[in-house]
């Protein structure tokens, strides 16, 4: 439970979260959401929750990002806000 590493990854998580809702390109939001998921997976590995971390890596940073990109492909990529 190295607290320096914890704090650094938490900072990255907050930045990825704010970025995912702020960018005007929906494809960028989907990829940033994938990065947010993967940082969460690292956090849980540090805390010792290996099963949860494995599931989040395969589900959040894998399949969930693919669903988002497929949906953005089928609708529109630009947004005004």
């Amino acid at each position, binding site marked *: 439970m190295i607290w320096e590493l914890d704090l650094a990854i938490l900072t990255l998580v907050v930045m990825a979260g704010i970025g995912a809702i702020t960018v005007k390109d929906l494809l960028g939001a989907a990829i940033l959401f994938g990065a947010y998921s993967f940082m969460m997976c690292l956090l849980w590995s540090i805390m010792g929750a290996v099963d949860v971390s494995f599931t989040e890596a395969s589900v959040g940073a894998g399949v969930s990002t*693919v*669903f988002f990109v497929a949906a953005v492909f*089928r609708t529109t990529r630009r947004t005004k806000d």
Partner: protein
Amino acid sequence: MKIIGLIIALVTGVLLIGATGDFPDWADPASPASTHLSPHFIEKTMEETSVPNIVTAVLADYRGYDTMYETAVIFTAGLACFILLRIFVREEPGDRLYRHLLTGVTVRVKEGMELPPSEDFERIDATWTPPDLIIKTVCRFLIPFIQLFALYVIAHGHHSPGGGFQGGVILGASIILLAISQDLRTSVRRLREKLDAVLCAVGVIIYAGTGALCLLLGLNFLDYSALASVLHCDPVTARSHGILIVEIGVGIAVMCTMIWIYNNVSSTGKYDEGL
């Protein structure tokens, strides 16, 4: 609207931060979450179920009822996507694009007309990109190994992190990789839509069926020690094998749901052109 949203978020945040004054310190061994039920799980898992991975044992045995309903929820979500999006078209719709393989010329065939069947023309999507040999070949090599790893994850859920969910998602991701690197039609030809949906339901039936079998053999629903008479072993090992059977059921259901949702979302239900 933005100001109201900001005020709501700030007020809720401040209230929650005020509530953290009562929380136990982080990583405290004497916190209330770690003192009532979890010592029983940690100390008794090995002698009651002989499964070293405590999380898998609690998920599939001690809390098996929750996991059964969660599998039903996943199946329902796949079903909901299918009902919302799927459009069954009887004949080939609209204008189609064909590409002559030898010269690279694109031919647009209008609605109602037919192309004479020959080996030189292939059907392409409206957003076609030139086929990349490296991606296609590398993905074709990787997919069997990904599936082998997924089977390993399901089978070793007892001794290492893993289990039914993780392995099922990785299996589904391997078929989605086939659909992305080549064509949606290729992956649908490998795993047809009707087989996919039926397998999803079969996964849920395996889970509920194991519980019903335990009920028929005389004990409670989902009490795996009743399987000792069917499998000819002592009750502790029967619980370990029961956990393996339900994990396989969960893996099958999760794999088919991921493929089902991807097929429906990426082609908006028409199953002709994908990502």
